[in-house]
């Protein structure tokens, strides 16, 4: 187990190193550099005149005049050694300050969404497989198709509309106005939980549609196995039998795609966040892209990918633990 874990950890580090190169390249693509954009912004915002010498000074100050390879190592070195993700010019502060506790909000949304996804798709998938061919099964298939076809931002708008109509309140965002800038307290936490369900439903929507189908398909395969008939022939009660034999194995594909689900959720996050007005990393990422605030964008992209890679690692470990056939250490 130790060796298996270590190997996966090394693989994770290599992947993250390559990802950081890619993210850095994306940060470098927009024309001009930080100094240019800083100067332009200063100039267009306040009318303060910025000379070419000033721009050059900023450039030298931040080491932006060095070759690209060196700048990459400066950037990644600062992140790894000092946890410094660079400067966010839009807010004229460090990226770390801008991101702040949004990482935790994002993780909160992620975990709520994952929990919701599996809490719905696993039992429903099992049920659909057991009742294969029933009208409920067909209904679920239709729902799955729709779930995959409906763009999430549209779903977000529809849910917002009905929430407004039925509850009369604006349920967008992550906090009620009175808690928005308040320090953390139990009240604020409860307020957050009350707001979390909407983004979680929107983000879980397509994952649920997809995973119900996966669960149903693998469960159907497992139900046909001889081991299930054999267990039934030993007199194992039906309910216990379903959970202990086919379901226990059918869950493996779900576990092995946790990273994939996280990827999808993060992929949809910026757009859903824009519609629902969520103040977390996705929304910040979108804003940073629109402002070409590339240090912020790069940091967020790196963080999101890191979470995905980490979840992949967790899913590998879980799978190895769940399935004794996966030889540990091999």
């Amino acid at each position: 187990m130790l060796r298996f874990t270590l190997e996966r950890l090394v693989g994770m580090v290599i992947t993250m190193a390559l990802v950081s190169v890619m993210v850095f390249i994306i940060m470098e693509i927009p024309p001009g550099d930080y100094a240019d954009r800083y100067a332009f912004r200063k100039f267009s915002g306040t009318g303060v005149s910025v000379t070419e010498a000033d721009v050059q000074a900023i450039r030298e100050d931040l080491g932006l005049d060095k070759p690209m390879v060196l700048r990459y190592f400066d950037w990644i070195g600062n992140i790894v050694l000092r946890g410094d993700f660079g400067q966010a010019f839009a807010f004229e502060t460090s990226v770390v300050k801008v991101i702040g506790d949004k990482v935790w909000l994002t993780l909160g949304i992620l975990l709520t969404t994952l929990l919701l996804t599996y809490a719905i798709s696993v039992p429903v998938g099992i049920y659909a497989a057991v009742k294969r061919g029933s009208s409920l099964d067909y209904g679920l298939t239709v729902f799955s198709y729709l779930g995959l076809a409906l763009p999430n931002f549209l779903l977000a708008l529809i849910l917002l509309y009905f929430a407004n109509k039925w509850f009369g309140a604006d349920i967008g965002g992550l906090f009620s106005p009175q808690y928005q800038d308040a320090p953390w307290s139990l009240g604020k936490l409860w307020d957050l939980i009350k707001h979390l369900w909407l983004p979680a439903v929107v983000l879980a929507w397509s994952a649920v549609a997809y995973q119900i189908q996966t669960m149903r398909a693998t469960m159907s395969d497992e139900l046909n196995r001889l081991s299930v008939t054999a267990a039934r022939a030993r007199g194992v009660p039906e309910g216990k039998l379903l959970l202990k034999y086919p379901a226990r194995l059918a869950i493996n594909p779900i576990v092995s795609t946790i990273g994939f689900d996280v990827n999808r959720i993060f992929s949809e996050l910026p757009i859903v966040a824009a519609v629902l007005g969520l103040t977390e990393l996705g929304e910040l990422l979108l804003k940073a892209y629109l402002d070409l605030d590339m240090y912020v964008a790069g940091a967020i992209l790196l963080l999101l990918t890191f979470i995905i890679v980490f979840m992949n690692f967790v899913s590998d470990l879980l799978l190895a633990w769940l399935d004794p056939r996966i030889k540990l250490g091999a």
Partner: protein
Amino acid sequence: MLTVENLSISFATDEGRITPVQGVSFSVEAGKTLGLVGESGSGKSISTKALMRLLPGNASLGDDTKITYWAKDGKEIEIHKIKPKSRALRDLRGGEIGMIFQEPMASFSPVYTIGNQMMEAIRLHRKCGKREAREIAVEMLNKVGISSPAERIDQYPHEMSGGMRQRAMIALALSAGPALLIADEPTTALDVTIQAQVLDLMRDLQRDLGMAMIFITHDLGVIAQIADEVAVMYLGTIVERGATRDVIRNPKHPYTQGLLKAIPSLDTLHDRLSPVPGDIPSPTERPTGCPFHTRCPDFINGICDVNEPPEVGGDAGRSVRCWLHKEPESGRSAA
């Protein structure tokens, strides 16, 4: 201890209703072994699945089907009337009738240890604690000839060899103490040497535990070694039955004769084996008249393809369904 009368099984399928088993009757006596022989598709496996009500949801039993079983405590159980999901059915499965399958790997769940699955069965049918169940399981593994059973019990199925898994499978089926064991081609997937060992083991276990057994196979050679009585099935009906020795020495039905010719033996070593020609028809295209007439070497035109032959009895449970052994005139009036 078990009698089956007029067992018919139908399936509702997309192409309509098919009835792969029609009017099968047989009985098993305590401590004896009945052999069921036939090609794949002859309905022998589903017939035994019906005894444990293990048929899939689209299957139904015929109206005049009667399956009666006398339990260990002497009670009479009408299996065809038991409600699915009932306590009685769960007690019957495993506790009264045990079952072992052809694929030992596929019949164990790969994610639990052998011990876990054995102890589950033991605790379901014998009132005992975990520790006691473990002791019974170890003893059972020992009985089926698995060395160092106390360690083997905590292994996963994929950590065992094929023959050992089959032994473990037998131990698993016997651990709940059934009075009747149904063995569905238990030796087909094994090497010939291991096959002989497993057959020996099953014979010994049967003698020691005083069990009855229904042994399903397509191999008359295996039947000769293990069964007291034999019933030959073709397309869902029993075409010939009798004491094993009689049937093998003096087969009456052309199908049985064909099966016997297909067994390799020292006498036929230099000749080509003669398999039964043709394929078994699909249950959706059941031939009229005698179901075997499409492949029969002694086919009588105008009789065999028109009327179904009745069962003609002899002495000592011997019977055959074939026009060669019955005057067609009386058969026609019976039909």
